[in-house]
């Protein structure tokens, strides 16, 4: 039996207006059969500041339309009028939970186009921050997932664990949320004395909590009731909807950029791609939990393998006058939500001609979410959004 047939409320679409090829349906609101309900933007169950315009029939969603733009600041425009180096404080604001991926991708774009080298240790430190970013991203996500279905206890623990990682970030980079640590040529600062021990201590504590979360959250009758079979992603949609990251891996698509397109120092690390079958909310949650545990292991590996000595950044030309010859490049990396990509076009001046950010939520949060919302119980909307791990600023930038 496939999970698809396992929908708890296997909604009969024939009752409702048919969804046309463009994803919309003609709904006659004046028939009083349906009500409109805005899920957001002022809503505790929404991921970030966005909105989903739901049309309900009873408890069931007939149509969901994603509304974004509440966080639009026009990054791609602003970057065009700032010098390359000046954009580093800007890019990290695109994705608040994991700014490091923006920094990494943008720095790598510049390095690709200018040929700046990154020293060995700088690369290791980059890998370390990227993995730490993944770890804290997943921790926050677990907190959000638990919160979305009303399990505050686990949310509290997970957010505490995330704060531990943030403390280490603060120590390493000097910033709590926005690190601005990765710069062209390496990273900004060397690893502080005794960092490894403190990190290890934190990792132990996090592991302790993870054991409890495993027991309390993933072996939980109610959570399983709520999530198994809900929010199913058909493997056939993976390419149609540009599904990446854990959402795609949970559908059995063995694709992890860290492994398939090794960047930074991932080629030297020992890990396997986590995959699962039948991407429903529970599977996705559990897959993310497994990845989180692997991240803990990876951080340990990185700290072990990192050379003690060495430059953290290479000598660069004057960053204030950096000009990049005409050219374009695309750089991708694997953040917690999947493929994070930067497309940079340079035109030979001191300013980028265009930077385009491809956040994984762009496809997850609009086309896919709108598809998946149909026939979902209104109670599941919040957890469905969290389980897709959408993050609105990536969509509108």
């Amino acid at each position, binding site marked *: 039996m496939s999970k698809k047939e396992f929908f708890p409320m296997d909604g009969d679409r024939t009752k409702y207006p048919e969804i046309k090829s463009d994803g919309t349906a003609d709904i006659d609101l004046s028939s009083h059969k349906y009500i409109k309900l805005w899920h957001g933007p002022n809503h505790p169950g929404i991921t970030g500041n966005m909105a989903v315009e739901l049309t309900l029939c009873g408890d069931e969603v007939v149509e969901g339309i994603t509304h974004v*733009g509440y966080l*639009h600041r026009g990054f791609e*425009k602003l970057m065009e009028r700032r010098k390359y180096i000046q954009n580093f404080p800007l890019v990290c604001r695109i994705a608040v939970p994991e700014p490091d991926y923006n920094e990494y991708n943008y720095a790598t774009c510049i390095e690709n186009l200018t040929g700046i080298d990154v020293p060995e240790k700088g690369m290791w430190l980059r890998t370390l921050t990227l993995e730490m970013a993944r770890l804290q991203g997943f921790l926050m996500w677990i907190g959000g997932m638990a919160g979305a279905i009303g399990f505050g206890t686990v949310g509290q623990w997970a957010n505490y664990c995330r704060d531990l990682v943030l403390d280490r970030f603060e120590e390493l980079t000097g910033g709590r949320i926005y690190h601005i640590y990765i710069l062209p040529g390496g990273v900004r600062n060397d690893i502080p004395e005794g960092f490894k021990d403190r990190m290890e201590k934190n990792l132990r504590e996090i592991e302790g909590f993870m054991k409890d979360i495993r027991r309390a959250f993933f072996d939980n009758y109610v959570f399983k009731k709520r999530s198994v079979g809900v929010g199913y992603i058909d493997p056939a949609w993976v390419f149609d909807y*540009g599904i990446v990251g854990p959402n795609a891996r949970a559908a059995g698509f063995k694709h992890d950029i860290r492994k398939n397109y090794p960047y930074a120092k991932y080629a030297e690390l020992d890990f396997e791609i986590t995959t699962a079958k039948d991407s429903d909310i529970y599977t996705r949650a559990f897959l993310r939990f497994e990845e989180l545990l692997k991240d803990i292991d990876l951080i340990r590996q990185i700290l072990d393998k990192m050379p003690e000595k060495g430059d953290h950044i290479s000598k660069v030309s004057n960053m204030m006058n950096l000009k990049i010859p005409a050219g*374009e490049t*695309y750089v991708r990396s694997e953040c917690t939500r999947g493929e994070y*990509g930067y497309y940079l076009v340079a035109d030979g001046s001191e300013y980028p001609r*265009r930077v385009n950010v491809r956040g994984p939520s*762009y496809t997850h949060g*609009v086309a896919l979410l709108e598809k998946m919302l149909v026939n979902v119980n209104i109670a599941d909307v919040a957890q469905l959004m969290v389980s897709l791990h959408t993050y609105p600023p990536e969509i509108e930038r």
Partner: protein
Amino acid sequence: MLENIISELEKQFQLEAVDHNSSDLVFLTIDRDHAVMAIDLLKWKFGYKHFVLLTAVDFLEEGKFQLTYILNNPDTKTDIGVRVRIDREDANMVSAHHLWPTVATYQRELKEMFGIDFPGSPRLNDPFILEGWEGTPPYRRDFDTKAFAASFYHQREGRTTNDPATYMKEKLYPNE
């Protein structure tokens, strides 16, 4: 590997420019009318089934928009960037939403932010990011965001700055 694909493509289309970025990323330029056909071919024949992104670049000086479709083949782990140059005036492009449903979202954004039309694309004219925007689409290069922000929004007054060289001239050798 990529060379074979390009030579295959060259047989059918006129490739205006081919730039090898690295061993697994190549950008090629195809004319407006054949681009979507080439993408279609890349998707179904060469396995470039993962649609990475679609975006536009404004080459104001040349009066052109460049549309870039980046396609990824997850099996061979290679990327192809298909570039299309279209006129800035009356900018429009063949829609590719039939190949991937998500493309419609990108096209909606381009319509809103660049004013590029994709006839036939679903919900193209629905507001996506902006609300009540009038005038030049903001991502066009002839739209000056700083000047707009300065005139449209209230800024906090009372800031003045000095250029060190000019200031020193005023202070040290004002008459020279």
